[in-house]
């Protein structure tokens, strides 16, 4: 039984159904937001679930709900998935054997487990949606969804989950769909190890890979998304935990979220997306250990922050982006221990971003380490490593004796007048920068790193 047959597999016991339902309080969740601690009694069904799961895998038997199983095969007595769903009692496991099923607009409104064997293909032949889940605790594994319809008025999804709890979508493939996975008003569910690809060419005729709208406590992990409009899109997704996903080569954003407070994103990779990653209008967000690389283009950002507050960005890698971090209207963010290397702009902080603290980051070989649009400074830069720093450390404390001014005069000029970018790397500009460094008159007076590090921070 190939449950975890995908590019990134997670240890099998980790995502048992019991962990998510009826009490959506996995270990990670408890660590993540301690405010939501529940009684440890809740762990009992969790372990039962784990046990069931493990026996299910070990014996290759259907999950032991006791309600039996139904087998769908192309030439079998039950030849269509629609028929199987119709026949199945709640709690049944439907095993779908390898083959191609030309079906669409399937609706599940009872608790079922759909398990594909050898990746059966459900092909909607470019019309309508494929599968809609309206019941709690449904599990979908090992199925390939293909070719939903493209619509400019309806969000056709390969797999739509609506008003449900504890749904598991694990180890599936999604190929050339409009939207791949769409969760609307869903709680405590898991989207893991799915391989999602599309070959969209225009934003308007292309949907999102994983789309969460109005959800609570969803975990998205180990997915690979490529070629959609936004790789992962979240709107009103409270307490989402997004980790170890790879989102690259999407038309617009690798990750795009709005109004999603208390979320945690870690160890994801976002590369080569049309416009990088955009996070907006959220509070209390943690972004740690992610890789933002090669988002390179006239309008691409490693990470675009818009109205994000009280958040934490640490341990990330930003490499070869046009703008590594662009901050607009974002306040009280701790940017720490990030590796910001070879970007056009390292950090671009607009004057409406205040009380952010940038500390212990490595700024290496960025064309502009820090840029801003104001002479005033409302943020703190302290104890970072700047490859551009040319001071000295006579007293051997590890921090330079001379403060570092990371804003080049040229970055201000460019901010005021983009056409002057044609003078990039010109000798004249180097002279201007040098003159400004010696006698600062135009760059923000207080935007200074008083304790620049002499050596890179080890991350």
């Amino acid at each position, binding site marked *: 039984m190939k449950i975890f047959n995908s590019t990134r597999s997670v240890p099998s016991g980790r995502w048992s159904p019991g962990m998510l339902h009826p009490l959506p309080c996995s270990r990670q969740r408890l660590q993540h937001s301690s405010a939501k601690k529940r009684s440890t009694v809740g762990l009992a069904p969790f372990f039962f679930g784990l046990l069931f799961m493990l026996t299910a895998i070990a014996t290759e038997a259907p999950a032991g709900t006791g309600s039996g199983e139904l087998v769908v095969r192309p030439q079998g007595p039950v030849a269509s998935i629609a028929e199987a769903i119709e026949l199945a009692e709640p709690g049944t496991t439907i095993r779908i054997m390898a083959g191609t099923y030309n079906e669409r607009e399937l609706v599940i409104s009872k608790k079922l487990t759909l398990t594909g064997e050898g990746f059966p293909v459900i092909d909607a032949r470019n019309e309508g949606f494929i599968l809609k889940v309206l019941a709690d605790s449904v599990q979908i594994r090992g199925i390939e969804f293909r070719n939903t319809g493209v619509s400019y008025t309806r969000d056709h999804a390969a797999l739509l989950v609506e008003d449900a709890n504890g749904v598991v979508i694990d180890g599936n493939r999604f190929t050339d769909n409009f939207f791949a996975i769409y969760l609307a008003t869903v709680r405590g569910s898991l989207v893991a190890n799915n391989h999602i690809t599309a070959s969209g060419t225009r934003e308007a005729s292309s949907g999102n890979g994983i789309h969460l709208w109005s959800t609570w406590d969803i975990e998205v992990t180990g997915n690979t998304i490529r070629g959609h409009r936004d790789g992962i899109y979240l709107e009103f997704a409270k307490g989402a935990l997004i980790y170890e996903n790879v989102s690259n080569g999407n038309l617009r954003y690798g990750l795009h979220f709005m109004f999603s407070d208390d979320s945690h994103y870690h160890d994801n990779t976002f590369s080569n997306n049309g416009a990088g990653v955009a996070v907006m209008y959220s509070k209390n967000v943690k972004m740690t250990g992610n890789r933002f690389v090669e988002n*390179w*283009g*006239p*309008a*691409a950002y490693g990470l675009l922050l818009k109205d994000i507050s009280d958040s934490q960005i640490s341990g990330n890698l930003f490499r070869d982006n*046009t703008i590594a971090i662009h901050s607009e209207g974002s306040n009280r963010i701790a940017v720490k221990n990030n590796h910001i290397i070879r970007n*056009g*702009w390292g950090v671009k902080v607009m004057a409406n971003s205040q009380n952010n603290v940038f500390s212990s980051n490595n700024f290496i070989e960025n*064309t502009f380490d820090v840029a801003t649009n104001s002479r005033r400074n409302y943020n703190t830069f302290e104890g970072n490593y700047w490859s551009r720093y040319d001071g000295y450390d006579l007293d051997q404390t590890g921090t330079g004796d001379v403060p570092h001014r990371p804003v080049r005069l040229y970055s201000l*000029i460019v901010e*005021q*007048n*983009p*056409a*002057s*970018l*044609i*003078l*990039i*790397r*010109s*000798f*004249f*500009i*180097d*002279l201007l920068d040098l003159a400004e460094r010696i006698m600062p008159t135009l760059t923000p007076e207080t935007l200074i790193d008083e304790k620049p590090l002499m050596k890179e921070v080890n991350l």
Partner: protein
Amino acid sequence: MNTLKIIKYQLQDVIRSRWIIFYTLFFWLITDALFRFGGSGEHVILSLMNVVLIVIPLVSIVLGAMYLYNSREYIELLLSQPITRSSLFSGLYAGLTIPLASGFALGILVPFAYHGGLTSEAAAGVLFLVFVGILLTVVFTALAFSIALRFEDKIKGLGLSLVLWLFFAVIYDGLILFIIFLFSYYPLQNPVIALTMLNPVDLARILLMLNFDISALMGFTGAVFQRFFGSGFGMAVSLGVMLLWLAIPLSVAFRVFLRKDF
């Protein structure tokens, strides 16, 4: 035939005077040092770019003028022989540019070769850098010739060469910046492209940078530049302008040389 003989004699003369060896060593040491201080191929090219854009015009224009002033007696001697002025002129010009260009190319390419930079994907980049460097060399030696032949006074000629270098390498960019700010309410992309094309140093800089894909940095402006310079048409125009920068000063110098009463 006479031209070749003159070139041969000039080469011997140039090598005897040793400055070409220092010139080659200069590039050699810088390239080598950049590799040793931990640069990959592409890194080294980007660092070399600034050196090339400053040093080559300066050395070409100053040395070119000096060379002509110093070979005054030699020119007078040869003109008394049955040699046409055009073959003497081309011999002199080639005798200067060939060692300058090959010294520069050698100084860059040899360290690249033994540091393994030529096998990597940076190979195309360094070849382009060398190509642009050679273009700058021939353009600025041509400028030097036209200055040195126009002005009898050595001090005046050398001073003017320095001023011309300063103008192209530094002042011109200041003027562009001034114009950009003066007309900041107008869409300036196309005029600015035209302005940069009028300066061989700027043109070389833009061509090199587009080769390293820094253009994405430039946002909308960059997209306009990329579209122009990245297209075959833009490349052809840029090369054409470069060749004009070679042809005009060279023909001025040649004209003066033909009529000059030494």
